[in-house]
């Protein structure tokens, strides 16, 4: 659902997913707590859980891949502690 009309001449709107997860070398105590809960609730066989964040963006065609990397790497994620991926989902 679009809440804002795109500006004139920028009709194409793409959905972009940004996923952020804490770096593997940094302890993720929330992930460990979830792992412990899984084993308590009868879900064996899971050796690791890392908790992260997922962002859904709706962007017009003026937003480049470089813009998205800038947004993801400088605000949505903190590059000191987190890794991130940017995925364009579709255009409509």
């Amino acid at each position, binding site marked *: 659902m679009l809440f804002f009309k795109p500006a004139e001449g920028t009709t194409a709107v793409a959905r972009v997913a940004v996923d952020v997860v804490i770096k593997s070398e*940094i302890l993720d*105590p929330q992930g460990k707590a979830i792992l412990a809960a899984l084993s308590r609730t009868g879900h064996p066989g899971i050796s690791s859980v890392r908790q992260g964040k997922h962002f859904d963006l709706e962007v017009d065609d003026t937003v480049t891949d470089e813009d998205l990397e800038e947004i993801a790497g400088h*605000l949505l994620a903190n590059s*000191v502690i987190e890794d991130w991926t940017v995925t364009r989902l579709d255009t409509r």
Partner: protein
Amino acid sequence: MTARVGVITFPGTLDDVDAARAVRYSGVEAVPLWHADADLHGVDAVVVPGGFSYGDYLRAGAIAAQAPVMRAVIDAAKSGMPVLGICNGFQVLCEAGLLPGALVRNAGLKFVCRDQWLRAENTTSAWTSRYESGAEILIPLKNAEGRYVAPEAVLDELEGEGRVLFRYIGSATADTTLAPANPNGAQRDIAGICSADGRIAGLMPHPEHAIDPLTGPTDDGLGFFFSVVDFLEGVKVS
């Protein structure tokens, strides 16, 4: 002319009142600064106090680091103005790129609220010159995201340059099985650090809550505020 120390209030800041009181206890003027301010009202130093700026949305300190007043703080800090970030303020300074590393969720997952022993490691910075090297102080600690982390190379650099201000220690009588010296799993027991020039400092525990035995565990926190006054008066004399 007496020094003027700015204290920032973001939406969600909690400790601005105590920080301003601590500034006044050190004999200088506390100047309130608002998150939307575009300039620093001519202050000589800035304290970024604790709390939950912008509800800790995204990451603790991440939104505050983008606030208009922080643009002015970043410019001033890069020109040598002393800046102290306490707790959420430390998180803001790291998110703003003024200090290296980051503060993440406590290893034990719990919000830790207790009086914490610290050992002074750097007593030459703008904010710690009133402490004796190796001095042990007791001030409050209260946070859920207080675990200091940085790449190993950065930690080595901080240690090599003497930029660790304070480390967590246990008290002589504390039962360490109940209260481990390091409350949150911070790398190398780091409670606070400073910039290479010693003017930008960040600390997770709260010196501004320990300025008077009437309301705090000690008055050990006053040293931060007297130190920066000494620093500012030295700058003005020279």
